[in-house]
């Protein structure tokens, strides 16, 4: 399998021990990623903040009870996904922010682009990704985010989503197709 799983992504998530001290030391790096993941799932920045807090509250309460073989980062993302599902249910119908792209919170964007070309590429990346995410069902979107945005391996995503390994690969493959289509549309429409 010549798959480049986990390559070029943030520090190997699997290597982190699963205990309270590790979670404290990882918080600074992990919390923004979890917040982004939750914002992409819930489509609401304020709701994502609440969900991030709830995720880490649960994580700190449970982290010392976990078996030593548990991988910290995938586990935290698993908790985050459960929290997002609960919030979705509690809230009923969540705004589909990606459908029209209007509700995306652009205030949080870093507008200090280095060059005009960078600024163009930044806009492209944001528009393409959010268009693609808006077209994906929740589960496939979560799988794509975990794989391409947060660098989890297929093996780590499978138990987190409750899927078999082949299903993970197929779902991510289809999600990537949607992303590439969105990119082609953007480039086709832009030229």
């Amino acid at each position, binding site marked *: 399998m010549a*798959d480049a799983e986990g390559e070029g*992504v943030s520090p190997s998530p699997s290597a982190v021990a699963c205990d309270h001290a590790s979670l404290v030391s990882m918080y600074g790096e992990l919390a923004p990623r979890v917040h982004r993941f939750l914002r992409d799932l819930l489509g609401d920045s304020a709701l994502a903040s609440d969900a991030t807090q709830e995720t880490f509250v649960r994580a700190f309460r449970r982290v010392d009870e976990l078996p030593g073989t548990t991988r910290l980062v995938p586990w935290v993302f698993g908790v985050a996904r459960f929290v997002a599902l609960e919030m979705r249910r509690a809230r009923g119908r969540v705004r589909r922010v990606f459908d029209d792209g209007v509700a995306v919170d652009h205030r949080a964007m*870093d507008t200090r682009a280095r060059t005009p070309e960078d600024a163009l590429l930044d806009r492209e*990346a944001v528009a*393409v990704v959010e268009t693609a995410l808006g077209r994906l069902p929740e589960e496939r979107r979560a799988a794509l985010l975990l794989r*391409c*945005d947060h660098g989890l391996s297929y093996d780590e995503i499978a138990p987190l989503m409750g899927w078999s390994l*082949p299903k993970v690969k197929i779902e991510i493959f289809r999600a990537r197709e949607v992303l590439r289509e969105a990119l082609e549309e953007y480039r086709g429409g832009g030229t």
Partner: protein
Amino acid sequence: MSAVFHEPDESLERGLFERRARVQGGAAGVPSLDAVLRAARIESRETSNGRGRAWTGLALAAACLVTVIKTRPHDVSSARIAADVDGASSGASDRGGICEEQVASTSALDSVYAGMVAVAPASQESRACVAPPATFESFRTLSCDRDEANRTEMP
């Protein structure tokens, strides 16, 4: 199909996501570690209090259940009731506790007792044949036979 499982190049997608993450910034809206730890501490305290209340409630419910089970009449099937009644009546007849008066039959009794049973009606019959008390003797003078002798013919 092998293209599905051996797709090696995800660099394009990852590049898009990385750029987007960089543009959108990092820590905006992320709760601080202190806030999270404080919330976790408060929640665990509330949970332990809640757990205590739950155990107390559970113990009370169990006590109520035991009381109800002890005081409640037992559910018994009609077949079992019938069996109990039959058993009780047969036991009662064994102990001589039947309600119906049984007719004494001399033929059913032992000869020793049959003799005793035969004596009683005989004595009753003899008592029935005894002459009336002496007080009735004075009235014998008023018998029709004597009046007949003393009667005078009417003209």
